[in-house]
């Protein structure tokens, strides 16, 4: 660690998704006491524009260099928050997410147990983010061509759209002719026009 970590922790209620089970205020108080945590806050929807702005504001005002968000699954919003911290000039990999919705409030019925589990997950995320390192994404050129597998109506439609954009399309079809099931149909509903 080159510089002393200054961590901000944001605990989301997700409306009632998390807030109705987990005592979010209690988790925030707990987070405030964790090592290197400079600020911990509660938010109704931390993924909202106002929520993201709160994080960016804290990064600027309190010189945060690490951010933890305790909310939903990272599959849902990890990229959202990585972009948010990057918007305030922080490397997006100085961010860690604790999933207290899918892993806690949606599966643990007892509020006491849920709150205790949420605290542990927040503590783990804070411990981890201390050791995060800045990483740089690389850019690579794209081959300006597309492969389409299947020459039915879906493949043909997609091929025409992409080819009209000026890009090379390879349309691979298993049968000796394109057309797929569409070419077998008589009239098509509801307009009863012919299909080929």
């Amino acid at each position, binding site marked *: 660690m080159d510089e002393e970590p200054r961590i901000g922790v944001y605990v989301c209620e997700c409306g009632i998704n998390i807030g109705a089970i987990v005592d979010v205020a209690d988790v925030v108080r707990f987070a405030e006491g964790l090592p290197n945590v400079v600020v911990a806050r509660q938010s109704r929807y931390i993924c909202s524009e106002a929520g993201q702005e709160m994080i960016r504001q804290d990064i600027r005002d309190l010189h945060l260099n690490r951010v933890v968000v305790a909310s939903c699954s990272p599959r849902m919003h990890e990229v959202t928050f990585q972009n948010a911290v990057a918007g305030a000039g922080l490397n997006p990999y100085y961010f860690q997410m604790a999933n207290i919705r899918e892993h806690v409030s949606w599966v643990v019925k007892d509020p006491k147990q849920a709150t205790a589990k949420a605290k542990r997950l927040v503590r783990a995320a804070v411990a*981890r983010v201390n050791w995060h390192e800045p990483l740089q994404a690389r850019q690579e050129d794209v081959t300006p061509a597309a492969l389409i597998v299947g020459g039915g109506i879906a493949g043909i439609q997609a091929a025409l759209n992409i080819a009209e954009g000026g890009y090379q399309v390879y349309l691979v079809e298993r049968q000796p002719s394109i057309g797929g099931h569409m070419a077998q149909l008589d009239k098509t509903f509801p307009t009863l026009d012919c299909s080929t």
Partner: protein
Amino acid sequence: MMDAGRHPHITLLTYSEVEEVSGYVGHFKVKVRQRPRYVDMELCTGCGACAEACVFKKGVPNEYDAGLSRRRAAYIPLNGQGVPMKAVIDDQACLYLTRGRCTQACLEACPTRAINFEQKEEIVELDVGAIIIATGFEMFDPHRLPAFSYGRSPNIVDGLQFERLSSATGPTQGQILTAEGKRPERVAIIHCVGSRDEHANRYCSRVCCMYALKHAHLVRDKTGAEVFEFYMDIRAFGKDYEEFYERVQEEGVYFVRGRGAEVVVLDDGRIQVKAENTTLGIPVQINVDMVILATAMEPPRDADRVASIFGISRSADGFFQEAHPKLRPFHTNTEGIFLAGSCQSPKDVPDTVAHASAAAAEVLSLLSRGQVVISPTTAVVDEQLCSGCKTCIPLCPYTAISFVSQDTTGVATINEALCKGCGTCVAACPAGAITARHFSDRQILAEIEALLR
């Protein structure tokens, strides 16, 4: 169809299948196996003289007519309307190619000498930035539900066979006739064959209600026959669909609410449909000349193979799994690979066109951006620690690790563009020489320690 065949930016690779895909978003390498057609595509004019001459008169079931007609070994696909409009010699049917014994009349008949029995399969290699999977569906095979007696009478047809019966390019030139060549007087249409049925597929196949209504309309319109639709619910949810349903009701089609329970072929060849009319709460029995089974759409039988070639997953119903049911319905979890049409779920024509256009838009935005961002969360090898044991190389599921010779020995090196950061090599390395960026031991141990404290 014609437009796709003529477009200067579209290369058609027909009679071909993808064998292997490697690389990553922006840089896929694809191997395509092209089956021999035994016809020189440059020389063939699509005149059909070879098909006329083919001595295999008995032929094989014509897949284009869903088995309702037969074709010879040499043929022009789609009953002469194929794209490309070039002949093909079916090597599973051709007497010369299967048994080595034939007069090869096709060779003589071809005016441009396009037929070449020496043709071999070819492997074509392609470089592409993005991939769309549009492998479509298969029709449910009603043999799997014996109560419907499919196969026991030629007048019990599935949804696709009826399309061919009613089509001007089909075996009856669009006249709806029984196998005996007569106009049917009474026709039954049975909904939900292979769908909404725990013995087949639990899902609603979405298109069958509407195509069954269309079939009822076509039968009424072309033959004037009485039509009985056996349905559980009519699902007419699309634009102008409910109006179409009303129109078919006004055309005098009888709607019987209740699943068709059993189809029996009677001694005189007529067909009896048994069902419960749940509106009246009574059993019904109707004798008809023709039964149309509104069969469901199913994932193709080789969907598993396609899934493993492209590294994508399938949902419980067997269709390809989208990345998110609402927000990413045409993405896969592999970046740069998209889904279009009914390979993702049953779709009618308007929905297929919309889905495919959306996937194309995603590909166009990727290609026109010109660059992709490669995630830095990959594995890295510490060359000082690597002993060159090569343990990691065969384990990598993305073939991202190669071996680089150095002086007396060598070290493993990871292609960061291919590496997905899965960590397999990190765990396997006996020297502890590989670390996963963003998943270092220190980070993970700190997390676990705090979790268990």
